[in-house]
């Protein structure tokens, strides 16, 4: 199962996208029970594409909470596909796609 959930709804030519990315967003500053620092692991880049075009991009850093929730709008229409992907500090990536309702 993808770590990303997306809801996209169109109204008056504007698509309202809400998304939740499951990610632990470890800052690298916290210490675990063994007293050692928990290695950093956080999302660095989030990109949203629709119709082959980037409609939203964000650079995250360690100030973003665990399981980030993101909402944004772009000009689009019903039936468009929205693809959201992230890349994290350990080089892992994930993406998910949904149809605009």
């Amino acid at each position, binding site marked *: 199962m993808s770590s990303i959930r997306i809801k996209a709804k169109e109204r008056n030519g504007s698509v309202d996208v809400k998304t*939740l990315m*499951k990610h632990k967003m470890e800052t690298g500053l916290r210490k675990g029970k063994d007293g050692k620092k928990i290695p950093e692991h956080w999302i660095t880049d989030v990109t949203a594409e629709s119709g082959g075009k980037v409609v939203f991009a964000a650079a995250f850093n360690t100030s973003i909470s665990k*399981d980030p929730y993101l909402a944004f709008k772009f000009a689009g229409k019903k039936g468009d596909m929205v693809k959201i992907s992230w890349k994290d500090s350990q080089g892992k990536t994930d993406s998910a796609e949904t149809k605009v309702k």
Partner: protein
Amino acid sequence: MFRFLRLIPLVLVMTFSVIVSAGPLGIGSVATPEMIAGWDIDVRPDGTGLPDGVGSVAEGEGLYEAKCASCHGLFGEGEGRWPVLAGGEGTLDTLHPEKTVGSYWPYASTLWDYIHRAMPYTAPQSLTDDETYSISAYVLYLNDIVDDEFVANRETFARVKMPNEENFYVDNRPDSKNERCFENCADPKAFEIVTTINGLTPTGHFKEDSGVAANHYDGNPSAASESGISKVKNDTKIVLSDKANLGKGVYDMACQACHNPGIAGAPKTGDKAAWVSRIDQGMDVLNGHAINGYQGADGVMPAKGGNMSLSNDDVINAVAFMVELSR
């Protein structure tokens, strides 16, 4: 012993009268199976008590967004301080455990039972059995416990295994009885007091000239002055009418859950652009929508914000409060 013997016939009579119910005294009537069924709505972990019915994750998505998401969040993340339903896996043994359906609940049956009894908050027991199956399935899906093709019915729902089930177990430690000692007891004088609970409450600042600052300003000395500043700002910006001032309390209680963050299509309080077309319709229309409920293109305004204990005047005052802040 004598008293005990005297009680026996009484107990017998009581037992007897329960069995024949409307027996010797002719009071009451025997509960019919239908009457019992009305109360017997609990659902057990093994699925006992689940009714016939069927519901899918797909159907649950729409229902969840319409009836649950305004408080529990689109993804079960919880709006404001409303309960979080999803996430929190692996946090139970940390400093900030997040107890959600997926991270904490031992049995899926509780989900069905709870939603069926108590949800939605504003209209409990208004869901049909099928709707309850659908929403339960969708909440399980939000927690990644089932996939998006899951269809819940009596059999499949009872088979759902919750991730945290193993961490619940029967506590079989024996009861300890605190029996009073009458003979050969320990001598209290021989007890050695190792520690007493003392010094937990800081009392320094209660004493005059102790030189200790009051605790509540520690580390946050600006707390008092800050709130003072923001208050002055508010006062100078918008002067509320008496009606609107009366409505503030109602707003905090019944309206702000949706109108503060602007969820479920509710116009945000203070968002002039969102309010202008609504204010243009006139206060009578706004009051009517707020009192009787309204289905608009953006979303639903439940009658009286879902709090039927409010009087019409309460609602009108709250509307005045929102409108005056938003024009």
